[in-house]
């Protein structure tokens, strides 16, 4: 199954490969930050003193604080590195949840079809049509009560946004895979619907998920930053979050203090770019196949569209 998920990368060529590699490098840097934050970051994300001495407030980049400090006396480099960890955690949780919920829903919906499918498609389209930031705001507002202003609440409010995308892609590929001869063959050997879905359809429709995963990841970073910017995301005392830092730093720029805003902003841009490149790189390779799969939905193997008089004849 894992090999199947990675197969698009192996199949990449030319321009798409360069995009993919550039994206992977950028993303990789932040992944290293995230994983090794405790060892890489000079200080903790909410540390404002060391060896009994307070950090200076809003100090420019220097030997002690490579990227300077902000108005809360925090070391900006440390905030960036710890922030990477927050971002990665949120993205992983939200993408994992939306795949785990969206893909099976799409599989079942596309497979059983009919009334249930129509309701689900309508519901998912409605969510999809809703401005995603607005949706995230509503949900983070709702979830902050029961879950607190932590990573999980932020991740779950993003999950809601992304479920429809997995649902749609998996559903559409399922609708065409359902017509495949090997599905009919599975029925012919006496397989139940559940078996057909899990053993015959799922493995062949899941290939499109990594692309959406990386594209969603990029989107999740910016949405999370936007939430933080609005003060609705992760609370500053819980974890370091770039969007929040950026919002605090906005006023400083007018006073000539550029480092407090520049570095968190740059971190957001670079990670979003990296993930987008990965997604687009994968997309370049997979999309022709995706598009083809989506188009296969034909009801009638032979014969053209109806003309009016044909309808009259049989009416």
């Amino acid at each position, binding site marked *: 199954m894992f090999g199947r998920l990675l197969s698009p990368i192996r199949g990449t060529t030319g321009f798409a490969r360069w995009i993919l590699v550039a994206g992977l490098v950028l993303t990789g840097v932040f992944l290293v930050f995230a994983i090794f934050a405790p060892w890489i970051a000079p200080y903790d994300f909410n540390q404002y003193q060391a060896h009994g001495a307070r950090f200076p407030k809003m100090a420019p980049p220097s030997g002690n604080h490579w990227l300077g400090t902000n108005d809360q006396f925090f070391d900006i480099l440390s905030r960036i590195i710890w922030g990477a960890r927050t971002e990665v955690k949120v993205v992983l949780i939200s993408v994992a949840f939306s795949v785990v919920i969206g893909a099976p829903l799409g599989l079942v919906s596309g497979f059983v079809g009919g009334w249930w499918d129509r309701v689900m498609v309508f519901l998912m389209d409605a969510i999809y049509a809703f401005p995603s930031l607005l949706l995230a705001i509503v949900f983070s507002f709702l979830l902050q009560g029961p879950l607190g202003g932590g990573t999980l609440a932020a991740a779950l409010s993003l999950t809601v946004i992304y479920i429809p995308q997995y649902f749609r892609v998996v559903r559409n590929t399922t609708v065409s895979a359902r017509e495949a001869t090997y599905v009919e*063959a599975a029925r012919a050997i006496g397989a139940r619907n559940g078996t057909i879905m899990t053993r015959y359809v799922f493995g062949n429709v899941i290939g499109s998920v990594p692309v959406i995963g990386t594209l969603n990841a990029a989107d999740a970073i910016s949405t999370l930053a936007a939430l933080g910017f609005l003060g609705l995301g992760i609370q500053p005392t819980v974890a370091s979050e770039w969007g929040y830092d950026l919002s605090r730093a906005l006023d400083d720029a007018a006073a000539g203090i550029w480092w407090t805003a520049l570095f968190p902003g740059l971190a957001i841009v670079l990670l979003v770019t990296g993930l987008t490149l990965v997604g687009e790189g994968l997309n370049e390779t997979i999309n022709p196949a995706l598009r083809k799969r989506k188009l296969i939905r034909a009801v009638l193997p032979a014969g053209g569209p109806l003309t009016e008089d044909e309808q009259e004849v049989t009416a």
Partner: protein
Amino acid sequence: MPTKPDTTLPLGPDSGRAPGSGPDTVLDLDGLEVHYELSSGVLSRLLGVGTRTVKAVDGIDLHLRRGEVLGVVGESGSGKTTLGRALLGLAPTTGGRITYHDLERGPRRVSSMRGAELRHLRTDVQMVFQDPHAALNPSMTIETAVGHPLKIHGIARGAELRRRVAAALERVGLAPAEQFMEKFPADLSGGQKQRAVIARAIILDPRVLVADEPVSMLDMSVRAKILQLMLDLKRDLDLTYVYITHDLATAKFFCDRVAIMYLGRVVEIGPTEEIFANPRHPYTKALLQAIPEPDPERSVPRDLPRGEIPDAARPPMGCSFHPRCPVAVENCGWESRDLRVLLEQHWTRVDPATYEEEKALVGDLDHLDEPALEGRLGNGAGAEQVGGILERIRQENPEDPFWRGVADLAAEDDGLHVRFGPGEDPPLRPAGGVEVACVLYPAGTSGEAESVAEGSGGGVPPNSGQ
């Protein structure tokens, strides 16, 4: 064979054995119909109109005898695959019934089976698909794929499963089995895939195997080998075959009996030697003239007049073969659509100026698409000239069977009326050693209607209506 009490017999009170079926039949089809409702656009669905019915299988009576190889032959679109799928309960039976004579449990009605019972049927009736490249799950190894039926039905697992998969693979010539078990379908050649598909079909030890054009997608070089394998399997495993094909050459070599299908019906059925030595139905004759066909993928007989197989959603009136039949007579079902075809074919032969002129006189032809025993051409003023056009067409080819169907040409106030005699939809009737659905072989004939059927050069055959 003793019949069991009604509880185990999911058949109605009228379930007495159909004529022709006996203790040696394994599957009985009685008036089987598989009609697909096709709804068109959203708008017409809202208005509640515009659904049309494709009669993929339209009234088939067949009795499959235990141990025989029954060939089902016909052009693409004649409903062969649908018939095969219906035998496994994969296509919805919309009319008639299929009865499976289970050796242990007595007769069961396939057409009303659901759930577990349907799945159980599939341990006895199995299918080999036309396209081996599509019939195997691309993300499943051969071992898993071939063994899955045993697993699904809870028959074997673990080492026993593996042993039986290996045995099945070697039985179909994929030896040594170890070399194939870990492979994915993409790693196999077409012939090997089809062998794997056959292995999956026989692993449940079925009684009936429906083979839907099992070699048509394979290289010439492996076709004979696969067919030979199937014959070996039949002998060793006591199988009964329904062999679906559009290729009469393989049917001749492979089958005990042959059923010729056209537009969802069986038009001729009988022992293979008799069908080949002495074809009776004009369609069978045309098919036989079409072999040997240089390009095996192109099975459409080229010498059939007015080429295309008609739309199964709007079959011709009367005998559905009549628009293409070279020996059709007056009661074969001539109708307005034939008139349109006649004119349009004529226009392909004339120069553009003549076409423009004649088209203006004849006017719009679309109303002829509504099947009817009468067709009107032109409007009042030009009726005589339209009659002249038809007369010229007739002079060009007076032997065209179409003219046998025309009962009356009348110039009236609103145009020229072309009236056809009433048609007959001939059922399958015994003729000689076979059964034929053709008006040239009415009930009670010896089946020696050759003098009539060969009469394409002579005049109108005698009326064999009643």
